[in-house]
């Protein structure tokens, strides 16, 4: 008896959605549009960037915004030697944890550098803003080493 054809078919499933950011994340994003970076003060006094809506320890709502610096230092990084199409840079770059001046926790963003050897924990970096800022995290184009 002949084997039956076993059929398979790829299919795509997609939907459109909306997302409201709320008063805290919304403030952070509109800050980026104005080329300013806001964190929020937690119950233990730490300044958290990007800001959180609720305190990680006490669960209380947080609302004390603190503007932080546009320079900071690298806490840790991971070098991307061969960027792929969906990466934010088209030449080699680093994903990095960057502690901005005035912040107590690092945030993740990308850092441009000529070579991996230029990066170090404690190396100073500064924001490079996108040509047009719209209230997206990508308004920060990347960070670059200071004095490079």
């Amino acid at each position, binding site marked *: 008896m002949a084997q039956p054809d076993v059929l398979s078919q790829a299919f795509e499933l997609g*939907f459109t959605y909306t997302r*409201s950011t709320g008063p805290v994340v919304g403030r952070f994003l509109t800050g980026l549009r104005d080329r300013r970076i806001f964190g929020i003060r937690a119950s233990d006094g730490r300044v958290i960037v990007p800001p959180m809506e609720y305190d990680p320890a006490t669960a209380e709502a947080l609302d004390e915004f603190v503007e932080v610096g546009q320079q900071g230092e690298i806490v840790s990084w991971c070098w991307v030697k061969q960027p792929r199409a969906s990466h934010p840079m088209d030449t080699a770059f680093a994903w990095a944890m960057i502690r901005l001046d005035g912040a107590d926790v690092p945030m993740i963003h990308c850092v441009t550098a000529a070579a991996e050897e230029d990066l170090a924990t404690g190396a100073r970096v500064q924001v490079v803003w996108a040509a047009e800022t719209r209230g997206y995290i990508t308004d920060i184009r990347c960070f670059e080493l200071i004095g490079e």
Partner: protein
Amino acid sequence: MAKLAAVVGIGQTHYKTRRGDVSIAGLVREAAVNALEDAGLGWDDIEAVIIGKAPDMFEGVIMPEIYLTDALGCNGKPMLRVHTAGSVGGSTALVAASHVQSGMFKRVLTVTFEKQSESNAMWALSTPQPFSVHLNAGAGGYFAPIIREYMRRSGAPYDVGIKVAVKDRLHGARNPLAHLQLPEITMKEVEDSMMLWDPIRFLEACPSSDGACAMVICSEDLVAESPKPPAWIRGVAMRSEPTMYAGREEVSPQAGRDCAADVYRQAGITDPRRDLDCAEVYVPFSWYEPMWLENLGFAPEGEGWKLTMSGATSLDEGGDIPWNCSGGVLSSNPIGASGMIRFAEAARQVRGDAGAHQVEGARLALGHAYGGGAQFFAMWVVGADKP
């Protein structure tokens, strides 16, 4: 043997078309804070959080519970997500209740939500599959043929659904939290509204709402620490069955009948119409009132519509067994929360805390939710009296 548990706090948001002012976290937070305030408690008093919502694809946030721990004060505490489609609000309440009834937890916060304005619930509900014709049906398209079969079997007049649509909106007009506020609605207006899925007209279908509902459930020994009267949990039951199988009774699913029988037995109910003072039952499409009246034993088979038409389920007509005094799913439908709203509104009634939609002297109430292809059922009976 289950330990006694009671609802000591209830919190809801206003149900609205769109809550663009808050994130999902901000929405669930609002209901949770309201429930804690109602219970006179703080975050530290809560030992575990049980959360529920409709499937992830509705809002496109995968496992939203993970990002909601801060908002719900459950860092360092157990958190559990319940998934049972549209009945999830009810089953989430029951999972929370069982945490306390087991004796393992003293106080549990339970929260459910949906932000339909940011979601795609209609089409995420009926996804196309390879090798199949895509029905593009949505929930109404799925249930409409089942309703037509009910009409054929029972010989119910065409306007039973219209009557329910009016009745629940008049109830909703008494409830300031209800999404639809239609105090002037008429039978003619419903009848003239667009036919969506024959025989379900636009005004015979539930709205799409944003909102959240929360409850605090605690053990017997802690009930007195909260200021308002408790709603004692007198019976809890869940049942499920497959969406389709040969010979499935889709008009009056066996799982629904079994679930009701179980919860009535626990609560000592032999005649639900006589023994209960009111019920909050999941009626997203008008005709599901007469269908569930029969499935839940409030009327003999084929006669549920007679109760509806007689006004027995209407608060405004002084009915003996008012259904959905809050306005029901037909007035507010944040899907994941809709079942819990039924459970919470039943509890509000027996706490004597239902405001303008209070059934006078309510002592015993049923909360009901169903989901999927009417295949998941969750029910509880709550009472003013400690069993």
